């Protein structure tokens, strides 16, 4: 109320023949970058690693994101890949381009497209998701996907870090995928599709820019998806030893 009143006072003053109002108009306007939204960018490889499975399979794996934007709007490119070294083929290759806006103090909403172009059939999805920090420091990334075939699925990633020291960090990550309809062509059955659980021990060698790690990753397929994999004589459960580095710049 008092704010409104003072606004009225100011505008009244302005409308009168006060010479100061003229002087005020002559004062410069702030057109410096300070008055513009702060634009920032960053690159993070959450995973960049070599995996060796209990079946002697060797994989090169990455999971990275690049962002550019302001507090109010960011563009994010997320890229994930699993490259089978012996077969020289991508078991998984996924790229997402999303726009991200804040929806609460700790969460952002995102929307965009996802392109899957691994060995075998490709898929394009529309993506709708949220990402942020849940109470008790769980980093959450939850997404809903609709493919061009009309199949819907959802993914949930959660990550938690334990600081053994301020440089030795133990991180645990769980990714789970659920499909609401079957997409037999890419080996996805209805229901819980798969989980990937990883535990990694890293050391911040150069600031937080370069943090080598070792770890263990467990991948498992479930239900119809597991049946489809068995029919293709693919494995439904793998254990990996991993070595790699987290990178940020």
């Amino acid at each position, binding site marked *: 109320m008092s704010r409104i009143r*003072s606004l009225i006072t*100011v505008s009244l*003053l302005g409308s009168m023949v*006060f*010479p*100061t*109002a003229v*002087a*005020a108009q002559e*004062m*410069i*306007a*702030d*057109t*410096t*970058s*300070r*008055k*513009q*939204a*702060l634009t*920032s*960018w*960053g690159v*993070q490889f959450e995973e960049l690693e070599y995996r060796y499975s209990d079946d002697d399979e060797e994989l090169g794996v990455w999971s990275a994101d690049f*962002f550019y934007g302001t*507090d109010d709007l960011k563009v994010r490119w997320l890229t994930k890949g699993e490259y089978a070294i012996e077969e020289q083929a991508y078991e998984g290759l996924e790229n997402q381009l999303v726009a991200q806006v*804040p929806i*609460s*103090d*700790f*969460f952002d909403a995102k929307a965009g497209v996802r392109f899957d172009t691994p060995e075998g059939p490709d898929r394009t999805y529309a993506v709708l998701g949220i990402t942020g*920090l849940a*109470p*008790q*420091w769980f980093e959450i990334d939850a997404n809903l996907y609709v493919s061009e075939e009309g199949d819907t699925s959802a993914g949930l990633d959660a990550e938690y870090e*334990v*600081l*053994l*020291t*301020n*440089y030795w960090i133990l991180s645990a990550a769980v990714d789970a995928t659920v499909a609401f309809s079957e997409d037999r062509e890419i080996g996805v059955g209805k229901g819980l599709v798969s989980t990937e659980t990883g535990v990694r021990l890293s050391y911040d060698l150069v*600031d*937080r820019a370069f943090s080598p790690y070792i770890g263990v990753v467990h991948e498992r397929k479930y239900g119809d998806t597991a049946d489809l994999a068995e029919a293709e004589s693919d494995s439904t459960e793998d254990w990996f030893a991993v070595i790699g580095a987290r990178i*940020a710049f």
Partner: protein
Amino acid sequence: MKVRLLTGVLSLLMPALVLAGEYNLTVDRVEIDTGDFVKEGIGYNGKSPGPVLRFKEGEDVRINVTNNLDEMTSIHWHGLILPYEQDGVPGISFPGIEPGETFTYKFPIQQAGTYWFHSHSGFQEPDGAYGAIVIEPEGREPFRYDREYVVQLTDKHPDSGERIMRNLKMMPDYYNREQQTVGEFFSNASENGLMNTVRDRMAWGDMRMMKADVEDVQGFTGMINGKGPAQNWTGLFEPGERVRLRFINSSAMTNFDVRIPGLDMTVVQADGNNVQPVNVDEFRIGVAETYDVIVHPRHEQAYTIFAESMGRSGFARATLAPEEGMEAPVPPMRDPARLTMADMAGMPGMDHGDMDHGDMSASEGMDHSSMANMDHSSMGGDDGQPSDPFYAKGSGIMPVAANDGKFLSYADLKAQKPLYEEREPTREIELRLTGNMERYTWSINGVKYEDADPIRLQYGERVRFKFVNETMMTHPMHLHGMWSILDVGAGKWNPIKHTVSVQPGTTVYMETEVDAPGQWAFHCHLSYHAAAGMFRKVIVEGGPDSTQAKTDVAIEEGGDA
């Protein structure tokens, strides 16, 4: 009134008698060697920190600033009362200084004391663009000293300012290496019990706030007059002399706790204005503040000036000695500070929108137990608990003197000579200091500078500013162009400052006599908070035009002296 008029007429009639001084500054790319690392930065006249500018009260200065950078620059004269066009804030006072351009600042020196200057463009200030200002008073100083030194504190970081800002935006805890670890969990558990510790961690985890969030930017080397701890800047004295030390905190982000083991310090000036002398063992100097202290070393020995950062992530060190090369022991740093729930008290219900009521009551239940618990562990007993009315009761960053002696509080500061007559403020303006650490956004009243309307003041009014710190960080708030009369409850003896550190979970009042027309910057002086949006433009409407104002103020000052 007559005297004022007469002085005014005299000063108009005899401009030729007015002292005039011409000064030259170049803005240069420089190399900065901290002893820990060497980096490129920005300095004045070829070095960082730049020179100490020595002015005389009553002098008309002309300062020619030549920009040798390949980008725009500016110089703000921190704490000086001058016409707004000379204040040096691009986009508010003037357009800035182009590469290759020489800009001449012209203004009368209407005050005395210790001040400083720095760039107000981009991240040039954290990159090294600062220097000191010492103004000799027209009359005699109300205290005696035999020699004086500027002691300029800085927090030099290996990363450039721009890079630091980007890293903080990418990962707000990028530089925080004092976070709570598993080891700390177990040591807390054995001290306070497992369940208390779990509850405490849960309460903080629920808020997604870190007790260790005292300093955003760690990994710096504390410097004194451009020398790192190993390079050990040394000021010489003859035993028995009184030495005036002009402390200036030109850090980008770091508050320092300063002490000189073995010496009492008498604080005689704060932010350029003389205060009634107060003897202390230690004082905390907020970013952008200045304190002048007098020490009286009587013995033929060296003394260490030791300045620990408030979060204990780094320190600056220098030496006072009868001869070059002498050293005194350098004390170890104390344990890293941990915030308490008291420091969170300013958060509106600690409610973050996505917590439901069940969560809230649960977390409140936890708050009480963890708070009581924290008080015991961090403060060591109920009796004789240190307290400072300018900190939240039970605050984790409550200052405590290393020798359990006297730690300076704002409440101890009383003006030596009030600049203004005391009167009722004409109105109050509430400024909530707000932010979100996880997003590294900082704002005032929840609005960042980019989205904010200017604060409009009327010439001639006396405004009471109410700062409500709703964040868990200390914010040194700096109003340009006009004095900040800090309300310490001393009425007309309230100290006159240019920067007021507002501690987490506290409400602080200051009053300003709106006596300077034009437009001015008003912001948190932590470089990355200001850049993230904790910044306002203040427009002073009405009053004489700025040239008249200049004379007017000069007359008032003349009348005082």
